[in-house]
């Protein structure tokens, strides 16, 4: 990627206050930021991958136990949440696009909608947790309703997967919140700064993980 460092960039970019002193030009700086985040996302894939590996092993060891246990999850809430996340994925992608075009009003609105959808997601998740606890679907609950031991494995994975995903949503919402604040304050250049693109990438990843968590936890064991 030496090309990125080639000294053939227009002077406009070099003068930008968004350019850090150790970079040659904005193109190099943006390439570094994007690559950095993609690499980070690769590590995130492997982070969740450890959990998916555990799921795979136990689903192969105890296929019936897992089908039975998965039938107890709240599929309606899960599916609504899928729709919410996909919609927020759309608004986030559009926000990135708008930022590239310097459309500040549009960026502000799209980020606000993204945050709103994320908050609704968390709200639904919270309600779902409340229902789960009400049904004693917590592995240490003395009244855990499912008899086969592997059901507790499934529900441990359920809480861990959705919990870690929710933490990622929280981090994403925090990031969006700060960026929204900065956008409204006009404290950074939409086009020269890569933070909206970075946040958009991260949010896309959070979407992506849910796309796999959703079938594994909610769509399992529904066939009649």
């Amino acid at each position: 990627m030496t090309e990125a460092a080639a000294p053939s960039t227009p002077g406009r970019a070099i003068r930008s206050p968004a350019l850090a002193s150790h970079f040659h030009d904005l193109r190099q700086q943006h390439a570094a930021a994007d690559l950095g985040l993609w690499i980070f996302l690769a590590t995130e894939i492997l982070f969740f991958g450890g959990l998916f590996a555990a799921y795979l092993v136990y689903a192969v060891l105890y296929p019936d136990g897992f089908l039975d246990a998965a039938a107890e999850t709240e599929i309606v809430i899960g599916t609504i949440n899928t729709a919410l996340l996909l919609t927020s994925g759309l608004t986030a992608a559009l926000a990135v696009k708008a930022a590239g075009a310097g459309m500040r009003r549009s960026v502000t609105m799209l980020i606000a909608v993204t945050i709103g959808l994320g908050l609704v997601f968390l709200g639904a998740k919270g309600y779902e947790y409340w229902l789960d606890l009400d049904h004693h679907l917590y592995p240490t609950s003395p009244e855990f309703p499912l008899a086969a031991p592997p059901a507790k494995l499934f529900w441990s994975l359920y809480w861990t997967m959705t919990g870690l995903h929710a933490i990622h949503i929280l981090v994403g919402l925090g990031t969006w919140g700060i960026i929204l604040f900065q956008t409204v304050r006009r404290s950074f250049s939409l086009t020269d700064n890569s933070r909206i693109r970075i946040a958009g990438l991260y949010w896309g990843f959070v979407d992506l993980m849910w796309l796999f968590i959703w079938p594994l936890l909610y769509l399992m064991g529904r066939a009649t």
Partner: protein
Amino acid sequence: MSDIPYRDVDVDGEKPGGRLMEESYLGERFSIWSWLTTTDHKRIGILYLISTTLFFFIGGAAATMIRLELFTPAGDLLTDDGYNKVFTLHGVVMVWFFLVPVIPSVLGNFLVPLMIGAKDLAFPRLNLLSWYLNILGGTFAVWAMLSGGVDTGWTFYTPYSTAFANTHVSLTAIGVFISGFSTIATGVNMIVTVHTMRPPGMGWFRMPLFVWAIYATSLIMLLSTPVLAMVLTLLVTERLLGLGIFDPNRGGDPILFQHLFWFYSHPAVYIMILPGMGVVTEVITCFSRRRVFGYAAMVYALLAIAVIGFFVWGHHMFTSGQSMYASLTFSFLSFIVAVPSAIKVFNWIATMYRGQITFEASMLYAMGFVGLFTMGGLTGLFLASVPVDLHLHDTYFVVAHFHYIMVGGMVSAFFAGLHFWWPKITGRLYPETAAQIAALLMFFGFNLTFFPQYILGNIGMPRRYHAYPDAFQVWHVLSSAGAVILAAAYLMPLGYLVWSLIWGKRAPSNPWRASGLEWQTGSPPPKHNFLANPKIEGSVYDYHPAQQPRREPSDD
């Protein structure tokens, strides 16, 4: 001992950097606060040097207690619990707070931008954050130790760690988890820097092998550490929240923990050794005055180790009840991953062939590295073959094997690098004779400590034993005696290096007349690394006859 060449000779066209102390990264606006908030990769390298040294001596103190306890067969110095906590502390601190960060974060941080001719790493603030995370993680681990310790061994095997240990397992695991973020931050920084920050002229195959080594290491860090993070998360949720997925009472499989754990921890061994290989390549080429033998082969070997290293983790599990077919596959792949390591050893030796070899302390360390790494690597073959491993697994043979790699290899390489770049880092020359004595003492002490452990393993002494049968005592006494020498040898550099900071001679910008870009700037370098763009010309390791007097002018 040997005459030290080129001490007072500087490169042609000396850059103005080294002359003015106030321009250097060290002297500029000195205050504690300016150091704690610095984003300069060189200063962060120094911060890491201080913290890893601290952790090294904490881990070393634990090692000393282990060796003292094992002096006699009966468990007399420590209680059994105490002993278990001490070896756990030794493992946790040495692995995660010394070996993993030491070369990438100290030397890598300091040198990678200098070596490729960049002003800084791509993400300077992330770099600083990584140090704070490392310190925070280490604080958790040390806090766990001070508030009663942890006794699971650094491997945290379930179900002992989840359901039976009453010690501070979660606290320690959280500490290691946090340090994992630090590792990932460093890895991201290094990879992005190498990809995007090289100036024109610094092509991929123009990079010094140290940079390649850090690049390969970073790949492993990034691809393995997240799985460790997950397995520790699962461990902690099982302990604290009852979300057990390794619990046999629920049909959980403790072997799954081992799979996930070793998916990280075997590649982590290469995180610990690859940077050492990079350092040794720089040192051997410099003091042999030779271009490295087989540059391309060295690069491919590094990358091959990084990739194949992920396919061999099951050789830690031959006795666990893992399927025989899986064991044989892992065994085969483990033999294959030894090939690129062997290639590197041959290349280092071939680099010395027809060289102009001098024996500065770094060269002594580097030669020690080649020998000890060879022994550590070859004994790895014993453990890679299934029937022999059934006997030697979890014995002192394993302990000796990985200490040959980690201590004989990695620690030697770190000292080689520390001495080699000390003049660049501090602007001071260290006393050569003292350093040479320390290097030899370390080599001797190391072998006396760990060679008897091969024999102990072979006669059946299991790991992590607090008391042992009398028949093993002779070898334990030898080992403990070696440890005393080793401890003294480790204290020596602490003394003379600190001494050199105050009384050492000022270093010229290129005391070794080495070829890397880092030697084209002042010692210590100025804040922004280079006052003028460094000259990237010729090939890497261009140890040219014109730069040095040689007897045969026909050479090269």
